């Protein structure tokens, strides 16, 4: 089912976790990019994106994730993902995203490895 779109942010001193809910298309992707850019502007460059509640990501959503990776690379930041399905992980590897961002099974290990 089309889950309600939603973005949650959990900010700590050194890092922030952004959790998405629902289909990661251009609409949700833009919301996500905005939140991420705001965090990066504020100097928070250690980010975790938790995709556990996002079952479907389209290629526009992927482009937006790549833009976040680029913004973080410019600031020498780090991005880790968690909560990926097997197919999402496979797609991220195929798209070379996995070369520039970490992939972890859960939020704890994603944070620990920032």
């Amino acid at each position, binding site marked *: *089912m089309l889950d309600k779109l939603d973005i949650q942010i959990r900010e700590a001193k050194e890092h922030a976790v952004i959790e998405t809910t629902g289909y990661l298309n*251009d609409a949700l992707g833009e919301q996500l990019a905005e939140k991420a850019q705001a965090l990066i502007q504020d100097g928070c460059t250690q980010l975790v994106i938790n995709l556990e509640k996002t079952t*479907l990501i*389209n*290629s526009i959503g992927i482009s937006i994730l790549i833009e976040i*990776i680029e913004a973080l*690379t410019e600031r020498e930041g780090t991005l880790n993902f968690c909560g990926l399905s097997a197919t999402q992980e496979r*797609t991220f590897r195929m798209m070379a995203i996995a*070369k*520039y961002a970490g992939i972890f099974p859960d939020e704890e290990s994603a944070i620990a490895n920032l």
Partner: protein
Amino acid sequence: MSNEHKVLLTIPMYPDMELAAAKTGSVLAELKDFNEEAVEEIQLAIIETCINASEHSQSEDKEVHIQFLVTDDRLEVKITDRGVGITADTLDGTRLLGRPTIHPDLRKRGRGLQIIRALMDEVVIESSPNGTTVSFTKKKTPP
């Protein structure tokens, strides 16, 4: 063929309508006990193909037609638009699309067809100046 079922769907080219197609595909795949991963892959391939039709076809009727054919061991999906078609050049050059990024292997475009080809078992693209049909098949893997 026995136990073959056909489902036809027409959706407008409008944001998120691709989900109607994806969900229909998922119902059919789950009906035939495709595993969870296959169901997700089918949905992604349908989404990318429908988005491509919306983004690139310039079709005047702004409709995407989807035919699903499901048997006990495979799901075939045929997605058609009545747009301008894809040229062979474009198809060959897909890998080079997209403006460069900081990381040259992180491309922003040209990802849809790559995803479809990676996730589906057989992909056929038929295109003419009257439109494009992308067909793909997902075989059921034994549990």
